[in-house]
């Protein structure tokens, strides 16, 4: 058997559902005095699946907590069979887990679980995103008064945005605290959740609609600070500049923003 054919047969063995190898492939192999070929091949087969499942348990700890060992094992086994790893780094293994959940489970079950998968994946992305150059309060203190009205910002590279329709953040928190499962519930109003890394620690925060609107205006629509004040005046009237400064200060303290370069 040529090398490439032998390797393809080995690969097929690892990816197959059973740890018992194809007999023509097994016939090309030798075991040892007390290790037979079938056991040797089963060691490789089992190690392949368990190694990948361990990565998913780490990256999707809240889903593991939610489903329990057996259901999580079944779900991740199906995922690995459907989407075998395509990247040399196991760090990317879970990239399609949320999409897979939507494809694989019935809608009532899949929607909240997929949202949790997206939240957990957001933490993975924030964890090792580029550092960027987040604005600091010190930067703002040095900003000339005439530059304030035209100030524009973008999100720092680690910031992930997630629109939560369920109490996903509460369930995630419970899993971290190892407290009782709070039960999955739809929220009355979808809520924006931010996940980001600041000073090498990952953070998350849900935003009330007003703050989410203001942040989106600045980082997505490209409002300047004076435009933000003008938009907020509709709701806050003469208190708009104070509200704008309060939020801007919070976002900068959190490490969420970079200055938009014209």
């Amino acid at each position: 058997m040529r090398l490439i054919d032998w390797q393809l047969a080995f690969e097929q063995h690892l990816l197959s559902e059973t740890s018992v190898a194809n007999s023509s492939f097994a016939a090309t192999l030798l075991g040892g005095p007390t290790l037979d070929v079938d056991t040797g091949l089963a060691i490789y087969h089992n190690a392949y699946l368990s190694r990948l499942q361990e990565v998913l348990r780490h990256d999707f700890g809240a889903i593991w907590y939610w489903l329990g060992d057996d259901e999580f094992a079944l779900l991740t086994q199906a995922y690995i069979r459907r989407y075998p790893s395509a990247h040399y780094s196991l760090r990317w293994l879970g990239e399609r887990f949320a999409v897979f959940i939507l494809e694989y489970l019935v809608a009532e079950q899949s929607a909240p679980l997929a949202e949790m998968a997206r939240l957990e994946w957001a933490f993975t992305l924030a964890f090792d995103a580029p550092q960027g150059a987040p604005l600091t309060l010190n930067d703002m203190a040095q900003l000339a008064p005439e530059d304030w009205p035209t100030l524009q910002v973008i999100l720092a590279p680690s910031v992930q945005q997630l629109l939560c329709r369920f109490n996903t953040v509460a369930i995630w928190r419970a899993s971290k605290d190892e407290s009782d499962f709070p039960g999955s519930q739809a929220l009355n109003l979808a809520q924006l959740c931010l996940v980001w890394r600041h000073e090498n620690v990952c953070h998350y925060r849900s935003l009330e609609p007003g703050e989410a609107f203001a942040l989106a205006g600045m980082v997505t629509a490209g409002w300047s600070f004076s435009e933000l004040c003008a938009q907020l005046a509709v709701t806050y009237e003469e208190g708009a500049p104070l509200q704008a400064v309060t939020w801007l200060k919070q976002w900068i303290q959190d490490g969420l923003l970079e200055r938009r370069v014209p």
Partner: protein
Amino acid sequence: MSSSFPSLGYGLGLRNEYYEQILAQSPAVDWFEVISENYLVPGGKALYYLDAIAERYPLVMHGVSLSIGGPHALDTEYLEQIKQLAERIQPAWISDHLCWSRGNAHQLHDLLPLPYTEESLYQVAGRVRQVQDVLQRPLVLENVSSYVRSKADDFTEWEFLNALAHLSGCQLLLDVNNVYVSSRNHGFDAWTFIRNLPPESIRQLHLAGHMDYGHYVVDTHDHPVCDPVWALYQQTLEHFGPVSTLLERDDHFPPFEELLTELSKARELGASALARRSLCA
């Protein structure tokens, strides 16, 4: 008969579980080996600690994804990232494994054995030269543990390593534990394997633990080094002279002090083996 390279001494595998203690305590570790893939990321905590530790200790890069024996084309993007990381931390050398870890279409994330045939030898030697051209330095390759072997083998594993080093100019990372594991699984003599390796190519040694299931042994890197592996390690140093030695732990991480104690044991056993070598010289 000795290794051609100056020894870095006794090192530990750098794992995130120990970052804080390493920076706070500056432990008496001569060098650290880093898993290259853990740092092929754009930012974050891992790179922050890596840079800080690189300022204090010599580092060596150890990869798990090169798939030097794989049926696919070499991943040039991956190699470029390895090269950039090497520029960043200036490792004493760069190693990976004599294995394949990627199949035709998928990443398999395991250190899979190669048939030790002429076909494999020339294929791997050519790919090693390609890698060395990109990295502009010799590649160091580690022997892996295995649980099956090919009936088509033309060479023993140690003959294959000799021939590969000769054909490609690669250097060798001799994992003493892996030799022990494979010798138990395949029924060969571990010392015959080691004493037949080319001394001038031995760049580094690995020590690690495994799980012994009686009928076979699995390379888990999650236990302390066992007595037969310590004995083999001492024999190895008596034979090759001083070689940079690395204690590996990849799971069931003990308190850092326990690893330091195990590293001290390696130092003591290594020193007595080298003293015996001097007496016999």
